[in-house]
C-alpha cells in the first residue's frame, strides 16, 4: 500500500515538473499574472477608495463578495463543529481517554499572574489591528483571530469554565450571527439606498460629511468589524468543543 502510494505520488510529481517548464521565471514583472488586472488595482486603489493598503482595498471593496462568502464558510464550520460534538446528556463515554488531571492541574502562579496582566493588552492590540487595517498590514481576519486567541489563552491558563463564564455558549453563537449579519446588512443597506449590493457609494446619504470616496473607506471599516466579531466567536466555539469533547465541563 505504501509502495503503491509512493509510486502514484512520484508520477504526479513528475507530471507537475514537466508542466512547470512553461512557467515564467520567478520575480518577473511582466509575467501574465501581473499584467491584466493588477496594474489597475495598484494605480487606482487609493484614488477610488482612499485606502493605502492595496490588499485591504481589493479584499473589501473590489472583491467584497468573496469575503462575505468566506465569512459564511467560517460560520458554517463553527456550526458544524457544534452539531458534531456537542453533548448535554450526562453519561460515560464508551472510550474515554485516561484521566490526566494529575499532570495537568499544576497551574503555576507565574503564568496566572502574567496572563491576567497580558490579556487586556492582547485584546487592545487586536482591536488596533482591525481598525488600522487600512494603513498597515492587518484587517478583519487577523484581529478577529487574535481576539479569539486571547480567550483561548484564558482557557488554557485557568479553567475552561473561567473562560466560558466571560463569554458563554449562547453569547458566542449570538456574536457569530451578529458578525455575519453586519456584513450582509451593510450590503443590503446599500441595496435599499438605491445602488447595487455592496456598492459603498450609496452610504453618502446616511453618513454625515463624507464624499463618494470616503464612503468606500467607511463601508470597508464596517465590514471589517463584522468579520472580526464573527471570526472571534467561531474560534472560541471550535476550541471549547474540541478541548472538552463537547461537554464543556473540563478543558485542557
Amino acid at each position, binding site marked *: 500500500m505504501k509502495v503503491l502510494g509512493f509510486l502514484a505520488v512520484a508520477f504526479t510529481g513528475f507530471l507537475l515538473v514537466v508542466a512547470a517548464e512553461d512557467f515564467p521565471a520567478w*520575480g518577473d514583472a511582466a509575467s501574465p499574472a501581473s499584467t491584466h488586472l493588477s496594474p489597475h488595482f495598484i494605480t487606482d486603489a487609493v484614488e477610488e477608495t482612499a485606502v493605502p*493598503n492595496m*490588499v*485591504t482595498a481589493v479584499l473589501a471593496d473590489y472583491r467584497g463578495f468573496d469575503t462575505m462568502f468566506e465569512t459564511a464558510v467560517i460560520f458554517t464550520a463553527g456550526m458544524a463543529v457544534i452539531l458534531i460534538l456537542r453533548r448535554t446528556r450526562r453519561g460515560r463515554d464508551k472510550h474515554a*481517554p485516561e484521566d*490526566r488531571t494529575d499532570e495537568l492541574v499544576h497551574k503555576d502562579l507565574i503564568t496566572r499572574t502574567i496572563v491576567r496582566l497580558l490579556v487586556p493588552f492582547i485584546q487592545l492590540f487586536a482591536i488596533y489591528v482591525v481598525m488600522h487595517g487600512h494603513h498597515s*498590514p*492587518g*484587517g478583519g*481576519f*487577523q484581529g478577529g*483571530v*487574535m481576539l*479569539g*486567541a486571547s480567550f*483561548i489563552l484564558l482557557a*488554557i491558563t485557568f479553567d475552561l469554565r473561567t473562560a466560558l463564564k466571560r463569554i458563554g455558549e449562547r453569547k458566542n453563537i449570538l456574536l457569530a450571527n451578529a458578525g455575519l449579519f453586519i456584513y450582509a446588512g451593510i450590503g443590503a443597506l446599500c441595496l435599499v439606498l438605491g445602488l447595487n449590493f455592496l456598492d459603498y457609494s450609496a452610504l453618502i446619504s446616511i453618513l454625515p460629511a463624507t464624499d463618494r470616496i470616503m464612503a468606500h473607506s467607511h463601508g470597508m471599516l464596517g465590514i471589517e468589524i463584522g468579520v472580526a466579531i464573527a471570526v472571534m466567536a467561531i*474560534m472560541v466555539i*471550535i*476550541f471549547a468543543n*474540541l*478541548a472538552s*469533547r463537547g461537554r464543556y465541563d473540563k478543558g*485542557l
Partner: protein
Amino acid sequence: MIWQLDLIILSLVVICAIAAITVKDLLNASIILGVYSFMMCLLWTEMGAVDVAFTEAAVGAGVSTIFCISAVFQTKRRTKD
C-alpha cells in the same frame, strides 16, 4: 527575493514537513507543524506578502496548533505509523 535566505528557509521547511509526518508521537507532530507554519510565515515576509504572513502567524502558528494539540489530548498519543 534574496536567494540565499530563500534557499535556507525552504530547506528548513522541507525538513520540518518530512519530520512532521514521520515521528511516531502525535504531540510532537503537532508542535513540528507549528514550526512549519512559522517558517512559512518567514518565507512570505521575505517575498513581500505581509498580510498573508500576518494571517499565517496568527492562524497557522497559533490557533491551528492549539486545535491539533487539544484534539490529540482527547485521544491516544502514540501511533504505530
